[in-house]
């Protein structure tokens, strides 16, 4: 028994030492069939990855289908790689010396040799492969498919835009309330004063909810004809959210000496966009481009009520901001 063991060990040693003599034993495969299969597997993986994206895009993406499709993509890639490893690329046996944990001698020449050697090793790795183009294309396709599948779930972060960015609680008949949900009365405002109001029953944290309400002398108004009745008793309401970058408009500049100063205006503190109050929120200074959306008002039993929706989109601009209203 012990003898047998010795023989085995001796045989192994012999076999190992034999290998040492041969630096590199290569067995070139040249198996075009295997290459075709590898490519086919990779293309199939690409399809499976795209299938994942397609399933994901459906509203009620089925978990089983999602799991199956991505697993299929990965498994197909795995199969392709294994097949390529055993049938497509050269099968070689190579011996390497263990590092001796010492500083390897390096000079410029050696380094050049190293680069050459690395490039050569890399090229030799595909010796005997005939359909490089096909395999390359298949690999790229699989990469695209799997990459798409990997990135698609990012879309889960947020909802599709839809009409979310245009949502607004304001329509005819909605009452204006203050921070404590008490109705805002026309008599709460003097000429030159301003206050913040919200849509009754709406979430105050919603971007379109808060308004800035100001009062000017009715005879000063220069509203366009179609807004002639939007400001009863000289009271105007605008979205409080700046159309530049969504800061809250917190300054109302009302001139005490009308002859010498610019007219009443709302000023945003972030980048000083300034909106003319008298002509319905047109921008007169600063980086904002769109006017401040105005809310048509009417007065019912002394309380302020919306007479219609806001005149434009609330908040910062984005690609479709001008399509609404």
């Amino acid at each position, binding site marked *: 028994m012990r003898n047998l063991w010795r023989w085995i060990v001796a045989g192994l040693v012999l076999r190992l030492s034999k290998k040492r003599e041969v630096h590199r034993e290569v067995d070139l495969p040249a198996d075009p069939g295997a290459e075709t299969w590898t490519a086919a597997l990779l293309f199939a993986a690409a399809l499976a990855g795209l299938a994942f994206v397609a399933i994901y895009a459906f509203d009620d993406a089925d978990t089983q289908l999602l799991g199956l499709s991505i697993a299929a993509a990965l498994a197909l890639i795995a199969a392709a790689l294994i097949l390529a490893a055993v049938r497509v690329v050269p099968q070689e046996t190579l011996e390497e010396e263990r*590092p001796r*944990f*010492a*500083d390897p001698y390096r000079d410029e020449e050696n380094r050049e040799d190293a680069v050459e050697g690395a490039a050569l090793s890399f090229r030799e790795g595909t010796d005997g492969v005939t359909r490089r183009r096909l395999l390359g294309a298949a690999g790229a396709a699989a990469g695209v498919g799997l990459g798409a599948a990997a990135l698609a779930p*990012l*879309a889960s*972060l*947020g*909802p*599709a*835009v839809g009409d*979310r*960015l245009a*949502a607004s609680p304001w329509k005819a008949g909605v009452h204006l309330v203050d921070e404590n949900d008490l109705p805002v009365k026309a008599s709460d405002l003097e000429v030159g004063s301003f206050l*913040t109001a*919200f849509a009754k029953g709406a979430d*105050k*944290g*919603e*971007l379109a*909810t*808060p308004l800035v309400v100001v009062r000017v002398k009715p005879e000063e108004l220069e509203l366009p004809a179609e807004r002639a009745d939007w400001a009863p008793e000289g009271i105007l309401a605008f979205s*409080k*959210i700046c159309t*530049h*970058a*969504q*800061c*809250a*408009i*917190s*300054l109302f500049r009302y001139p005490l000496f009308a002859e010498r100063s610019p007219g009443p205006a709302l000023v*945003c*503190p*972030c*980048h*000083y*966009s300034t909106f003319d109050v008298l002509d319905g929120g047109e*921008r007169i*200074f*600063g*980086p*904002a*481009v*769109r006017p401040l959306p105005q809310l048509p008002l009417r007065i019912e039993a002394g309380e302020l009520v919306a007479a219609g929706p806001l005149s434009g989109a609330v*908040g*910062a*601009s*984005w*690609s*479709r*901001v*001008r*399509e609404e209203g």
Partner: protein
Amino acid sequence: MTTRRVFRFLDSRTGGGSVLGKALRYVFPDHWTFLFGEIAMYTFLILVATGTYLALFYEPSTAQVVYHGAYAPLRGQEMSTAYASAVDLSFEVQAGLLIRQVHHWAADVFLAAITVHLMRIFFTGAFRKPRDVNYYVGLTMLVLAVVEGYVGYSLLDDLLSGMGLAIGNAVALSVPVIGGQLGSLIWGGRFPGAPNFFGRLFFVHVFVLPILIATLMAVHLVLIATPRHTQFRGRGRGERNVLGTPMWPAYALRSLGLFFATTAVLFALGGLVQINPIWQWGPYEPWLGTNGAQPDWYLGWLIGALRLMPSFDVVIGNYTLVPNPFWGGVAFPGLIFGFLYLWPTIERRWTGDRRAHNLLDRPRDNPTRTAVGAAVFSLVATVFFAGAADRAFVQFGVPYEDQLWGYRALTVLAPIVVFFLTRALARRLRESGAHPARDSGARLVERPGAISRPTSGRS
């Protein structure tokens, strides 16, 4: 004796002995400008340490609570759990305010150190081959650090951070074509965002970005050590050697000293100089705003760009291709960082110099590069100061609108003027051999017939 035993133990198991031996003898050329990078690295360590402490108390939730804490003026007010936890951390956790302020100061110093370090690299030509790859790594860390800082102070959900997020959301929305979707993805809907938005922000701040920065920092260090440090010209110094203090013992002790000095300064600042008193700003709501709001300094150039930008959108029909915040919020920083990323390539193409360089230039040695760098810097500085024009209005009464036009003119003029001035100055200095910060050029002795070569500034 013991040392040797320990080293042998480790070496026989890891083969690290030679590496360690080399590390101990690693040579650092001495120059005071080399300290900025080290300060940045040490500040990062302090950020990680203080941030870990803060994360034990902070709650990333927008759930509304009524405040009943120690700070009387806020009592009874509705606020988010995030803000309440930050206020509690400041008033009710022993040493909480100290650590929070150290963290905030460290962030400001971190960005400052990286910026000055970047300028050192740029103006001395240290970004040239073989260090160009490492220069890109460093630039990327700077970008990440700016984002990390912004996300960090956004987490507190006080009035200022909310206003910053509102603007950030508008900048996201302003990206052509995909902006609406991008903003909705990041915020989980329309601004101010879904309830889980703060959870995401928190995770990005304490995990994703710090790990990216730490990884890049490791790569950065390896890529510094592999070709060894750069050095200025000087006696005995050439392209093929490096002359300086070895790591052990002198440099290690010196550097450790710098670490403790940095920490000391940051803790002194955190303890003595108030920064971001969030209880004064109050909680954020989309309808609340305050006048004179200023971001942290490293975002000052972006608010300046947003403010300087004249009012226009690119609109086709009723399709808004480029909303205004894009110019100041994306295009301008994109341009500056684009320049920085491309500069090594530009310089290589333009000079045809593809060699590796281990010796540093003094700024005057390459007047054109220095002038280009100074011009770009003057542009950024102009825009930065434009962001503080409202402050100048309040302090000195200079009308805001006039200032704005002045700054717009300056963004065009300053870079041009600075370019030619700097180039002329650098040329003069190079010729005279004088050192601007020292007494005179009398030191340089020109031998008749010898070509005057720039010599080291060190004597």
